[in-house]
């Protein structure tokens, strides 16, 4: 058990003299020193609002996070703010820190976390929630928001998981919905007033109230939650001026935000250790399992010229020999081939820079792109068919045909790749064993294609257990039991056991259950997260630390039922814990899309076809920013088919009011 508030508050400017002696005793000490190229070591502004941007996982995972780096730069450009960074210390470091009474610190200047006005967390995954609590506790701040004193730092959180804030509502003072670029200015201005007032007794309530009035900001303490026995009845504002619904913030044009300008270059190896340039934000392919594709709409492309400038300046400044063009579906970028070609042919790169394209849709990966990418060092290629059978892909609206996949794989092998990685989900709605086993067929057929080009051909199949996410059409779906997911994994393992060229990797079905608890949980799940954390359950994303028993115990202790939270199908009338949070999408649009999924109807990509009014644009008066009016490789669902002549499309597209061209 952990003692609450066990860390003594320290009034020191730098903890470095106390950290230095313990660093030789921990693994990978370089992750605690900062010193990155692009970091600001002298950013202290005594009269400014200070933000500690905290990633609740290890430095190696957190440092490359683009969202955190963008906010870091934007805040440091402001005269009235500055930002430093912190990451979750690994367990050995945490033990050293607790033994020596060293609190959580910034890696920039090694100042204690509780000297900051705001500790702001990036929530990229649900299983980090126990680390959030641990970081707050290590900071010497009460983990429960209700127990914080006036002068304690404000605890904030943003990122994709913030779209269901309820499981963390007891621990976080304010959440930010959507793009952070603009809202951090509004928050800074409010907090600046508060700190100038000296944070007097009773002022915490006032600053929280003020924050709750900022569009896109959710302050859970300003809302009451009511239940009817098990079922949630409502989340209602406590004051008249507090909004009943919180709508996400969206920046209209990525061209206005060419950040990060100075990507951090770490001294020690991290994931995605390369230049990362965000080429567009948002995705409207409409994959029904994909939360990111739902909550980040509309599509906002960065102008190609700005992409080129950011690549060129970034490579020159950092010395990296690899650039990743990031987005939710990189091959969909207008003129992607030209951008890749220009990068590789840039005289500055001496032909030594490789381009990696994460999140490739198979229908947009052509021989042309493959040839360009392969000119330099070949980076790993991952395609995401997501489901093995066409029936299943119709249900999830990932409308790529087997032939699309084979063409893409052929493009890769023919251009010199020996291995491709295929990403699949299992446990999808209505999935039958034939659908699961079709994954093996696809993989084996890909190997056969590869063998036409290389004797070394192999395929890695990465299999994830499907966890339904808030704000998606699948939010009503009852997640598979871990036993069922395990059975499906075993089906594939047995089927592929003899094929040495197909390597199967799978995500722990038990971890999917814990993710399910936190993904669609309500405010009552907060006590479960706290219980797991108090029992030492940190780093739950790491298989060596994950322990489902802790979660089961915690659910029991809180009187909550895993089946009810995770494995139960919801019906249309149910109040969902995140109903008061708006990502633009109309709930009736999502419900209709869920019904369409079960009926096998597809939906088009609206960036190239007429609007079907999901709500993401119309609610906020914004639009797609897309350079090319035509989808890549033909067809708004990439099947190479002309949607105007619907009978050629191998899927029935749902006719909708006001929608043309889909009959």
């Amino acid at each position, binding site marked *: 058990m952990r003692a609450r508030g066990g860390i003594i508050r320290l009034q020191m400017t730098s903890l470095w003299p106390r950290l230095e002696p313990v*660093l030789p005793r921990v693994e990978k*000490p*370089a992750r605690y*020193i900062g010193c*990155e190229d692009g970091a600001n070591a002298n950013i202290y502004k005594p009269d400014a609002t200070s933000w500690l941007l905290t990633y609740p996982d290890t430095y190696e995972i957190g440092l490359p996070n683009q969202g955190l780096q963008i906010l870091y730069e934007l805040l440091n450009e402001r005269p009235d703010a500055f930002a430093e960074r912190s990451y979750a210390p690994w367990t050995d470091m945490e033990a050293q820190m607790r033994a020596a009474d060293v609190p959580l610190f910034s890696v920039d200047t090694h100042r204690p976390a509780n000297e900051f006005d705001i500790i702001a967390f990036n929530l990229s995954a649900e299983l980090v929630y126990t680390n959030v609590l641990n970081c707050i506790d290590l900071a010497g701040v009460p983990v429960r928001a209700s127990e914080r004193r006036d002068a304690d730092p404000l605890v904030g959180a943003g990122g994709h998981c913030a779209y269901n804030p309820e499981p963390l509502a007891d621990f976080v003072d304010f959440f930010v919905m959507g793009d952070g670029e603009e809202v951090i200015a509004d928050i800074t201005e409010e907090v600046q007033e508060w700190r100038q007032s000296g944070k007097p007794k009773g002022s915490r309530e006032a600053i929280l109230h003020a924050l709750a009035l900022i569009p896109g900001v959710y302050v859970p303490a300003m809302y009451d939650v009511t239940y009817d026995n098990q079922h949630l009845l409502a989340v209602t504002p406590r004051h008249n001026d507090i909004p009943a619904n919180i709508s996400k913030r969206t920046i209209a044009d990525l061209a206005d935000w060419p950040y990060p300008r100075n990507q951090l270059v770490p001294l*020690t190896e991290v994931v995605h250790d390369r230049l990362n340039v965000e080429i567009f934000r948002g995705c409207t392919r409409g994959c029904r399992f994909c939360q990111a594709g739902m909550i980040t709409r509309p599509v906002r492309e960065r102008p190609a010229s700005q992409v080129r400038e950011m690549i060129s300046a970034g490579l020159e400044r950092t*010395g990296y020999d690899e650039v990743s063009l990031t987005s939710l579906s990189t091959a969909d970028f207008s003129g992607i081939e030209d951008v890749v070609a220009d990068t590789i042919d840039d005289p500055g790169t001496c032909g*030594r820079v490789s381009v990696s394209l994460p999140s490739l849709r198979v229908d947009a990966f052509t021989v042309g792109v493959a040839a360009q990418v392969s000119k330099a060092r070949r980076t790993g290629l991952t395609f995401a068919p997501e489901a093995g059978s066409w029936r299943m892909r119709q249900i999830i609206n990932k409308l790529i045909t087997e032939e699309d996949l084979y063409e893409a794989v052929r493009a890769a092998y023919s251009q010199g790749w020996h291995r491709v990685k295929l990403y699949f989900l299992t446990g999808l709605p209505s999935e039958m064993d034939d659908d699961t086993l079709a994954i093996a067929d696809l993989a084996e057929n890909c190997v056969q294609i590869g063998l036409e080009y290389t004797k070394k051909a192999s395929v890695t199949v990465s299999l994830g257990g499907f966890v339904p996410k808030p704000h998606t059409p699948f939010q009503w779906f009852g997640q598979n039991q871990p036993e069922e997911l395990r059975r499906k994994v075993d089906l594939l393992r047995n089927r592929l056991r003899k094929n040495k060229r197909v390597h199967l990797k799978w995500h722990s079905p038990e971890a999917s259950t814990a993710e399910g608890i936190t993904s669609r949980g309500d405010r009552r799940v907060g006590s479960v997260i706290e219980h797991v954390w108090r029992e030492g359950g940190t780093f739950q994303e790491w298989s060596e630390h994950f322990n489902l028993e802790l979660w089961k115990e915690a659910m029991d202790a809180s009187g909550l039922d895993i089946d009810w939270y995770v494995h139960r199908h919801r019906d249309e009338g149910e109040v969902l814990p995140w109903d008061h949070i708006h990502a633009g999408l109309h709930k009736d649009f999502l419900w209709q899309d869920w019904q369409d999924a079960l009926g096998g109807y597809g939906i088009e990509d609206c960036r190239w076809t007429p609007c079907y009014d999901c709500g993401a644009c119309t609610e906020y008066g914004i639009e797609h920013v897309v350079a090319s009016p035509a989808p890549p490789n033909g067809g708004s669902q990439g099947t190479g088919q002309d949607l105007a002549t619907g009978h050629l499309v191998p899927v029935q597209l749902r006719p909708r009011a006001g929608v043309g061209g889909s009959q």
Partner: protein
Amino acid sequence: MRLRIRFSKLGKVRFVGHRDVARIMERALRRCGIPVTYSEGFSPRLRMSFGLALPTCYESEAEYLDVPLNPDLVQDQTVFCTGWGQGEAHNPTELQDALNKALPNGFDVVALTIEPKSKGSLQEAVLSCGWSFDIVGAQTDGVQNAIETALNSSVIEVDRKKKNEIVREDIRHGIHELRLDGESERGPLVVAELSAKPRVIRPSELVDVLAPGAELGVAKRTHQWIETDGQRIEPLTPSNSITT
């Protein structure tokens, strides 16, 4: 031709491991457009070789890096840079400045030469290293006495982990110099020259001899010694003052 670089690694960056230092150097070389060479194969790597690896957490004023240059782009003492610095010619002083601008704080190139490639690696040529280190949790008098005792002994045995067993090993012959050099804020400061052959003897091993139970504070490598024509020399001597 090749570049031979002597650099220092001081302050917080002492916690950066050897492999990470290699990556830091690669990025700096690329940023300067220095015409490096690459290995062949599916995944070409930038060619470079270091002197003796420095343990993580140790500082140094004497790290070495050899970087083979593209012979077409070197003429006497002038290197023609490519890439971002395309077409620019640089003499050793300019290259040193450029690298120092490209390197993170804590790393400094203190000497740089353009010289013909020689046979054998620097790593194998190093015979001994100079060290300066302090000891935490020890009395200066005690350390002074221990040094005298050690120097008067003909055998100094230490425990050494070898795979699964611990063996006793004599390191007396590997201690070329050992003396007290006052005190740091952490404790007694020791200067030593320790042999690198047949194996590298580390300051941490001496701490166990001089002050059992105490801990190594900060250790700094001050020299790497090689032998040329019977002369004990350093591969490069600093061309400017080291910033600490």
